[in-house]
């Protein structure tokens, strides 16, 4: 006898309701409680060491970071800490800042991530990242002492260390020694001051070359010249913009003159996104431009060595101010642990292990940046040009310019500098307007 079981509409609805409710409950349930931060204590397995899964966000430095950097490092770490599974998730550089802010706001962060030094203040103020002090004290008490004091001080919030650098770099440029010599300049003597850069441009133009490049949305480049004139972005108490200071006005005039005299490609006067601008106007690769713009992007060395066969590169160093001092906007790629991380204790082990000299040297050798500690730099194996650029890290300075409102500056500099470069505004007015807008912004967004 065949029995057919009919399911009534009511039963179907019940089933749907139960399924829906289960899904909703599952979706709304809070995530597993994060491992308690026990002042650096580990999530202990039976062995007493760290355990569990650690998720890290990293950003690519090479064409295939997992293969060239992360797999070897994770493999080595796992041998030492077999109870920890590290998952390095590669993120795109595009919209990095937006992505990090959104993730931190939603508390959807990994355990730790690559963060730049300009995020210390806002992330620490919002308790998005945790202090590393206790972890370091328990796991690697000697680690922080290996970094230059100025660098470490800039990564503190309310006296607590919030991040530690994994890579560093100074803002420099490259020059083509052949074109430099063709322009009548001594290729062994690289430009040292703003005047030297200008002189290089004058001589290059006589030979039909662009002297250098400038993009109005590149704050690093603006700072290179501003510091070259001895200026600053913010007052020491970080309450007032100094974009209308005499040094800043001089910087605006200097940059406008670069465009006016056609020492730099005109395309840089508009703030197109990096990729579009670079593809359109890379006259350095076409050997029509003597030097690159000032940048922290050290990967340009390898890029041009590969792209232009036989190119002889020199480094345009951090520019010297009239008082003989040099200062560079720092590029500090750091590691920080998120307060919303699920396994912060094991993450601290991974972080401190990564920053040991040998691993730091490996990471930077593969990635083309500079190890931030002297002990790691001894093990750093790179070509002479990279080494020369790397030597400039001694000039990096972390102070109020970088710690507060740093990224906001370019938002206000860019449109007016662009207008001035196109001859639509006097450089003095542009500087004044940028400072006014920046001061309005500081008033609207006071620091706690």
């Amino acid at each position, binding site marked *: 006898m065949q029995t057919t079981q009919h399911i009534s509409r009511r039963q179907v609805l019940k089933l749907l309701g139960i399924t829906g409710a289960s899904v909703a409950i599952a979706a709304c349930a809070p995530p597993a409680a994060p491992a308690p931060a026990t002042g650096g204590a580990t999530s202990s397995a039976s062995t007493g060491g760290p355990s569990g899964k650690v998720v890290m966000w990293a950003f690519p430095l090479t064409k295939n970071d997992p293969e060239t950097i992360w797999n070897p490092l994770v493999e080595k770490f796992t041998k030492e800490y077999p109870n920890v599974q590290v998952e390095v998730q590669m993120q795109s550089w595009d919209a990095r800042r937006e992505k990090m802010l959104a993730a931190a706001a939603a508390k959807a962060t990994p355990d730790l991530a690559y963060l730049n030094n300009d995020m210390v203040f806002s992330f620490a103020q919002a308790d998005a990242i945790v202090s590393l002090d206790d972890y370091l004290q328990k796991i690697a008490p000697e680690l922080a002492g290996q970094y230059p004091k100025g660098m470490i001080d800039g990564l503190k919030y309310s006296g607590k260390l919030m991040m530690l650098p994994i890579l560093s770099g100074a803002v420099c440029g490259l020059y083509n020694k052949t074109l430099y010599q063709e322009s009548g300049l001594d290729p062994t003597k690289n430009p040292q001051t703003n005047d030297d850069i200008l002189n290089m441009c004058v001589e290059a133009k006589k030979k039909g070359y662009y002297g250098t490049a400038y993009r109005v949305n590149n704050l690093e480049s603006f700072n290179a010249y501003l510091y070259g004139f001895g200026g600053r972005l913010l007052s020491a108490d970080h309450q007032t913009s100094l974009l209308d200071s005499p040094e800043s006005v001089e910087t605006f005039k200097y940059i406008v003159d670069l465009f006016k005299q056609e020492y730099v490609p005109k*395309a840089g006067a*508009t703030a197109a*996104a990096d990729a579009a601008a670079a593809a359109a106007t890379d006259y350095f690769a076409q050997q029509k431009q003597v030097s690159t713009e000032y940048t922290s992007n050290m990967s340009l060395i390898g890029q041009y060595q590969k792209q232009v066969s036989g190119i002889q590169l020199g480094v345009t160093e951090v520019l010297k101010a009239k008082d003989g001092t040099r200062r560079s906007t720092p590029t500090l790629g750091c590691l920080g642990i998120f307060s919303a991380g699920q396994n912060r204790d094991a993450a601290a082990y991974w972080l401190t292990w990564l920053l040991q000299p040998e691993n730091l040297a490996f990471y930077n050798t593969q990635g083309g940046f500079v190890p931030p500690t002297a002990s790691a730099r001894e093990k750093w194996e790179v070509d002479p040009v990279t080494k020369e650029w790397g030597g400039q890290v001694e000039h990096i300075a972390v102070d109020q310019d970088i710690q507060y409102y740093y990224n906001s500056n370019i938002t206000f500099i860019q449109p007016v500098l662009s*207008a001035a470069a*196109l001859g639509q505004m006097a450089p003095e007015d542009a500087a004044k307007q940028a400072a006014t807008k920046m001061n309005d912004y500081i008033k609207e967004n006071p620091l706690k």
Partner: protein
Amino acid sequence: MQNVTPTVASPTIRRKPKSWRRYLVWYALIAPNVILFTIFGLLPIIATVLISFTRWNILGSPSWIGLQNFQRLLHDDEFWTSLRVTLVYAVLFVLPSAGIALGQALLISLAGRWQALFRTVYFIPVVTSITVIAMIWGWLFLPDDTGPLNYLLGKFGIPPQSWLQSLTQALPAVVIVAVWSAVGYYMVLWLSGLQGIPQELLDAAMVDGANAWTRFWRITLPLLKPTTMFVVIIGTINAFQAFALFYLLTGGGPLYNTTTIVLFIYKHAFRLQEMGYASAASMMLVVVTIITAMIQRRTIGGWSDELYS
């Protein structure tokens, strides 16, 4: 003899289900969509409205400041400039896009067996990455002698133009790129509209001696009015949301001359971390979009209703 007791089938009493029960299955079926819309559409809209009354830097806690963000917007020259740029862009983008796309659709509808090929060719820019488009056009628009467009102009004795570096040419230059990249999409919409026109009407008109122009003007165009409304409203909404091309090609410059309202919102939300202020600007954009759509519906929509009355 078997005693058979006649049984009388008792009539099934079917109670009329309560109205909400009757529709319960349908509610269950639309529930996934409603839930997803609520989570990803409605809640963010409500959140934006609430955030617009706060000062919030994304990471900290928002603080309630009432209408201050809206008051600040009213006095912000950059906001009004971005609104003006957006409106001008909408006009410059929608009319040529719709017109050129209609022309293309008409020509393609005559292309017989080559129709699929032309349709594909014209549609390629629509599916091309916006970054690639920006890189190619950024190169074409190079302001000096090396720019391909300037090179071509030079052949006709026209001096090199500044294009994206010019206060007056930057916006039209971006419009050219936007129209070029979007026209294929609108062409497909027009084409589907054209395919809905009964051939008998056109044949009858032809028999009556109507020439091609008269047939287009008196039959095709009036019957395309619903498509016209759709194309214009969708085009306008897309124009109001313009961001990527401006971000990639000009970054909003020179001197805010290509700063659209979405670029303005993005800058304040993510560059300056002023989420409250950016949300207030978003609310203003919603209001402008609704007003514009209502005006368009009244003009083109009325025009379309007439047809079927």
